[in-house]
């Protein structure tokens, strides 16, 4: 029997429920909403008649200067290696928590998700007398389910008050790295549970009245491997927020609070309006694409990331359904918030780089995802390497936008092939030569090469695909602080470019060997060792694949002293194996942390940017220039580019090349088969049994595959992977059993 409840009873019920919450878990109302808040009463008052755009422009110019200065100063003051090379951002938010402005440099993604924790604080803490929000308070957080990217990023934000009311928020986002996770540096393939991820902070008040809270500081320092770095960088964050707060207050003093409110809000609205116009002008096309993660970080697997894009009712729809289910004990899952971050990053880097860097770029964008997939995972799975989805997602969005814009009347960016998208470097942890405990990453992970342009070659290792002007470090500075020698710092290997009419940029090799530490180890977190990470565009080639290579059981410094020499070339070291006692291994780019001995070699290579257009259209003079610069091999010149040249002078013969290329074009036609024949031979109902395949198959996104089983996308169960060591033991035991059986059989005979 149902009973009707009166309004008073309803209210009482609500009060009871709201006052008896055991845990302030992430709030879906906040976390699944990326749109800007409606105009507040103050914003409406200021902007009702359009405000004063000229004055607001002047104010934003000043605030932009303040954000850029704060960024530069923070970059200099920060200790975390990622931050020192640009892996951070400073930003301003409106009182409601809408992202209003960001520093010119840095990783926009840090502030594309900061509205979530600000709104959380406003909703849950501001009126809670045990926490509250006051002038001089500064909050810190890192948990992705409260709005972070992944746990190694720690962001801080501070309210700006005017006459007792919050009028804005100032923020700094930063890749901190070490956070007490299972693996040094805050992330690694061996993280199998959210509870292996180290610190997991919802917004916490790290400072009150502009003073750091010693209890919180000490707790956080005590929870990670590098307490001094944690402390110094928290201090830096507080200082940055205070500096930005001062700038905002100066605007209020000079122009009045209304002008500040108008300047911030109008920036968001202008961007949203402009994005709407741009979406409406897109060609009426539906573009699909897919990329694959080639490992879970512990085992080989093909995890599908699928995207279909179109415009519907004035909204740009990004439909990620058909992507891989989440993996319960692997760290590559991404929350929905991460998908939104990747879209803003991709659009602001590669599609609309002229727009002010604010989150309103997503105002007229809608995402469609299936919960419990790697594009919209749940809180009970690890996410620390969710950037594997992020990197691939940026590439996928970029490719789709390139196709959409190829024939568009107005382009806001140049059409280029995909940027490389993996962090091909080493993370480290241990005790330095100065006796300090540390754990973090080498900054040359930023050196991802650019994709080929529609009219020129791509740039060699430069900046990651998620930010402009991130830097690649100097080896001398790394070596003076850390106990390793960069045996190879930067050398381009041959054929590490995406071939095409215009080639992608080359990535460099790198090799480190520990020297002078009592305890040291390395790990790696890259994908793309078995399946190319980056495709080409419009006929261009993708990047090659890259393993982590190791030479164990040697001390390279002793080998050199013995006269063994050292040739800085991974290809030579691994193929010719010049050190007799060495144990040479090439493994997946994701390598759990392992201790090393002095002088053991760890080697990897940055990947290549994608190529653009058909290799047979490449100017043969450019091909020969690549050969002279050591970027391509003779075999590539002859068999990929089909260039005829004089081997002594390295000068191409254009006429003979034209003829050879025409022959190849004819050969291509001869190798071709009718499309329908191809489809018949290629398309299958389900993924092949031998393939460790995860995700949708074909166009029916309701049907997903994982661990060899089929499931409905609205009924994805818990998918766990076996421990690779257990799997290996099982293989050995099976082999042992076989051998034992054979032995017994042989004995019987």
């Amino acid at each position, binding site marked *: 029997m149902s009973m009707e409840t009166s309004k008073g009873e309803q209210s009482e019920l609500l009060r009871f429920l709201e006052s008896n919450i055991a845990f302030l878990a992430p709030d879906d109302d906040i976390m699944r909403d990326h749109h800007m808040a409606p105009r507040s009463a103050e914003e409406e008052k200021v902007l009702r008649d359009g405000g004063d755009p000229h004055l607001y422009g*002047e104010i934003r110019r000043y605030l932009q200067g303040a954000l850029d200065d704060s960024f530069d100063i923070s970059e200099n003051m920060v200790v975390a290696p990622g931050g020192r090379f640009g892996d951070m951002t400073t930003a301003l938010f409106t009182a409601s928590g809408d992202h209003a402005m960001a520093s010119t440099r840095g990783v926009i993604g840090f502030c594309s998700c900061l509205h979530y924790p600000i709104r959380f604080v406003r909703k849950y803490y501001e009126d809670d007398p045990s926490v509250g929000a006051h002038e001089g308070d500064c909050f810190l957080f890192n948990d992705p389910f409260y709005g972070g990217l992944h746990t190694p990023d720690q962001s801080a934000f501070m309210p700006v008050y005017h006459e007792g009311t919050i009028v804005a928020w100032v923020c700094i986002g930063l890749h901190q790295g070490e956070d007490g996770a299972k693996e040094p540096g805050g992330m690694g393939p061996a993280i199998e549970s959210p509870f292996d991820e180290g610190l997991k902070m919802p917004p916490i008040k790290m400072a009150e009245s502009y003073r750091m809270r010693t209890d919180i500081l000490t707790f956080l320092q005590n929870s990670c491997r590098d307490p*001094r770095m944690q402390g110094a960088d928290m201090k830096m964050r507080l200082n940055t927020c205070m500096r930005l707060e001062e700038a905002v207050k100066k605007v209020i003093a000079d122009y009045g609070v209304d002008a500040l409110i108008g300047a911030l809000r109008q920036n968001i609205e202008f961007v949203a309006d402009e994005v709407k116009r741009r979406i409406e002008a897109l060609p009426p096309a539906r573009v699909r694409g897919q990329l694959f993660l080639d490992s879970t970080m512990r085992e080989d697997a093909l995890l599908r990331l699928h995207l279909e894009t179109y415009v519907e009712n004035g909204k740009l729809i990004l439909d990620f359904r058909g992507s891989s289910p989440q993996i319960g004990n692997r760290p590559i899952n991404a929350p929905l918030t991460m998908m939104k971050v990747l879209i803003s990053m991709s659009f602001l880097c590669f599609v609309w780089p002229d727009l002010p860097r604010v989150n309103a770029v997503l105002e007229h964008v809608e995402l469609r995802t299936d919960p419990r997939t790697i594009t919209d995972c749940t809180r009970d799975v690890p996410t620390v390497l969710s950037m594997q989805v992020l990197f691939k997602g940026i590439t996928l969005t970029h490719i789709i936008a390139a196709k959409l814009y190829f024939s568009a009347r107005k382009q806001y960016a140049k059409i280029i092939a995909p940027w490389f998208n993996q962090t091909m470097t080493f993370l480290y942890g241990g005790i330095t030569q100065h006796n300090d405990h540390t754990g973090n990453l080498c900054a040359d992970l930023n050196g991802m090469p650019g994709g080929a342009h529609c009219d020129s070659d791509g740039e060699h290792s430069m900046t990651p695909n998620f930010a*402009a002007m991130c830097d690649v470090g100097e080896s001398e500075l790394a070596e003076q602080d850390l106990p390793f020698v960069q045996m190879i710092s930067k*050398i381009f290997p041959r054929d590490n470019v995406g071939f095409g009419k215009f080639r992608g940029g080359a990535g460099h090799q790198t090799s480190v060997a520990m020297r002078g530490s009592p305890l040291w180890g390395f790990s790696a977190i890259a994908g793309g060792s078995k399946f190319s990470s980056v495709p080409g565009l419009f006929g261009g080639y993708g990047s090659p694949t890259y393993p982590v290579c190791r030479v164990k059981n040697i001390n390279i410094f002793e080998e050199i002293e013995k006269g063994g020499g050292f040739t800085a070339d991974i290809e030579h070291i691994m193929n010719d194996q010049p050190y007799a006692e060495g144990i040479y291994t090439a493994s997946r780019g994701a390598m759990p942390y392992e201790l090393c001995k002095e002088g053991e070699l760890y080697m990897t290579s940055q990947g290549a940017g994608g190529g653009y257009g058909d290799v047979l259209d490449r100017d043969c003079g450019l091909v020969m220039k690549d050969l*002279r610069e050591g970027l391509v091999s003779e075999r590539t010149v002859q068999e990929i580019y089909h260039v005829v040249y004089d081997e002594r002078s390295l000068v191409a013969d254009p006429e003979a090349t034209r003829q050879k290329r025409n022959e190849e074009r004819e050969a291509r036609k001869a190798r071709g088969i009718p499309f329908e024949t191809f489809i018949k031979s290629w398309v299958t109902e389900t993924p092949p049994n031998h393939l460790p395949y995860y995700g949708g198959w074909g166009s029916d996104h309701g049907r997903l595959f994982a661990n060899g089983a089929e499931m409905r996308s609205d009924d994805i169960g818990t998918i766990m992977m076996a421990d690779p060591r257990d799997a290996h033991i099982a293989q050995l035991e099976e082999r042992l059993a076989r051998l034992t059986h054979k032995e017994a059989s042989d004995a019987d005979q």
Partner: protein
Amino acid sequence: MKRIAVDIGGTFTDCFVAWDGRRIHSKALTTHGNLAFGFNQALDIACEKLGLGREAVLANADSVRYATTLGTNALIERKGCKVGLLITHGFESTVPISRGRGYGDGLTQAEKLDLTRAHRPEPLVPIPLIASIRHRIDYLGRVISEIDEDHLRGQIRMLIDRGAEAIVVSTINGTANPSHEYRVREIIREEYPSDILGSIPVICAADVSGRRGEYVRTTSAIIDGFLHTLMYHAMSELQSNLRLSGYHKPMVLVHNSGGMAHLNSTDALQTVHSGPVAGIHAAEAIEKRGGLGNIVAADMGGTSFDIGIVVGDGVKHYDFTPVIDRWLVTIPMVHMNTLGAGGGSIARFDVISNTVAIGPDSAGSDPGPACFNRGGRYPTVTDADLLLGYLDEMNYAGGSIKLSSRRAKSAFKSLCDALNLDLIEVAKLVKRRADGNMAVGLVSELGAKGYNTTNFTMLAYGGNGPMHCCGIAAAAKIDRVLVPPFSSVFSAFGAAGMTQLHIHERAHLTPAYNARARTVLDELQPLNEIISDLEERGARDLLRQGVDPVRVRHRLELDIRYGSQAIETAVVLSKNRFDSQSDILALIAQHRSDYERRFGRNAPAPETGVWITVLRVASFVESEPLDLSALHPEPDQTKKVQPVSHRICHFPGVDDPVETPIYDGRALERGMRLEGPLIVNPGETTHLVEPGWSFDSIGEGGAWITRNTPAENS
């Protein structure tokens, strides 16, 4: 005092002569084919004013000093020699990769952000001219692997065969132990001895910079090598010209470190930006001799706005890793921030923000602003200045350029349509935004160094500085502007006051405070030994130039950082040796105080460790300074002057047009006071005094321009 100072710029060669109490300035067009012609012409004009012949002046001159943009221009135009690079094996792609950020260094923010159009500049050393040295040194300078000399000889021959005209040698950790670089140089000399025609310059990177950072150090050496031959020949021509005219003393070149040295003690890289740096040196001299306190130097030209800071407390602002053209290098260069803003900056409609935006595109000098009538079609800041009545159509730049207001109006039409405002309103908006942008740059620059505009005097010079100074100062909340004497040849004026100076540095990582062990440095001998060595090197440089040893002075500076922070702050010490731990504690305290002032009360982090990273010694000789004591004349009410004409002008913040008096600058005597609005045209530049500001002439083309009602400043 009998000094001649010359600043050879891209367009004009400026000359300043201090001659027994007289101060003369002159200008002539730069003659790029042979710089001596322009120099002679400028000097002849000055000599004529002095009433002396050129030979007589040169025969009796104490010194001839050059500041030149020759190196800067050659770099921009890529007119250097073919440089080969020998670098530690394993690092061959370091220079082509260029630190990642290399694609954006020297570009505008919008260009930096657009990855889809990102391209690195054409390399100064193409990949085929990079060869390797098989060897290795660790961060402490210990040899891991000796040089494979047979391999090296082959690499050297390969570079020469490929046409290298200069070779740069750069070894990893070469600052900790440069012996391998020197051995490589020996081997090159063995293979190509200096007495044969194939001999080429060899530059060791560790000699160019003593700082860690293999990319920036190598690039510094490459630029040095790239410019070496060209600069050598150009400077030799000038020196020969001086000798022919009767000047037999060594020529002195202005360095971007803020000092100067003889030609034989100058690296090519040290001359880059020496002209603007000489301007900042003049600001420093004005601060010191004129007792002005803090100064922000604002040099606004046609395409750029250079900002420099001079503070009364003696803190020196250097850039240790400046960007030169498109290249990040490491040399101690006087700090100067250059914004892409000037009279040629183009105004456009910002469709996203529904307002006007200025720059970063510039019409430059060719075609120049639309009103130059040389084909420029876009509205610029100078066009707005003309439309607002500030410029005389017939008398711009001393009458050398006739302006066309018709062209300016035409260029503004589409902007007016987009903004739906009339011409004058748009021109006012352009001026206000341009001034505001430069003010933001100026405030940011001060903020980044830990200052605000309170108690700062703005020094306004350059072609457009005195015209926009009121607008910029008002937006930056600065109350006092000094248009210095000789503002139109201010860099030459600065060069005339410089002293001989050499800077030597050594990277030396040692903990002043070891936070883990909780110990303060007590091993002081190694530091003192390095300081002695650096002083000896500096003294050697000066003695080589004939300086009397008793006049040599040294200034010790240490770069200090907290923990592993990237930022290193220079601390200038009052003594040149460390005698006890108390000296180290004093160093730590001084660093803390500087750091706190710059970054805020909560910023210092000594608990993470305090590291000494670089020791630096500036060795110099004091020379007689220019007399700058007469910057504060008593107002003289008895002196009157009449305007030569009136013009209708429009000012931001003033609704109605204002009939504005125009004064001939040559008629303004020291001590005269005038109330704005007014325009002064001393010949080469225009001084605009906006409503609410007053003008006090100090003579020699200089003036104080002060706000009548001081701004409220925080």
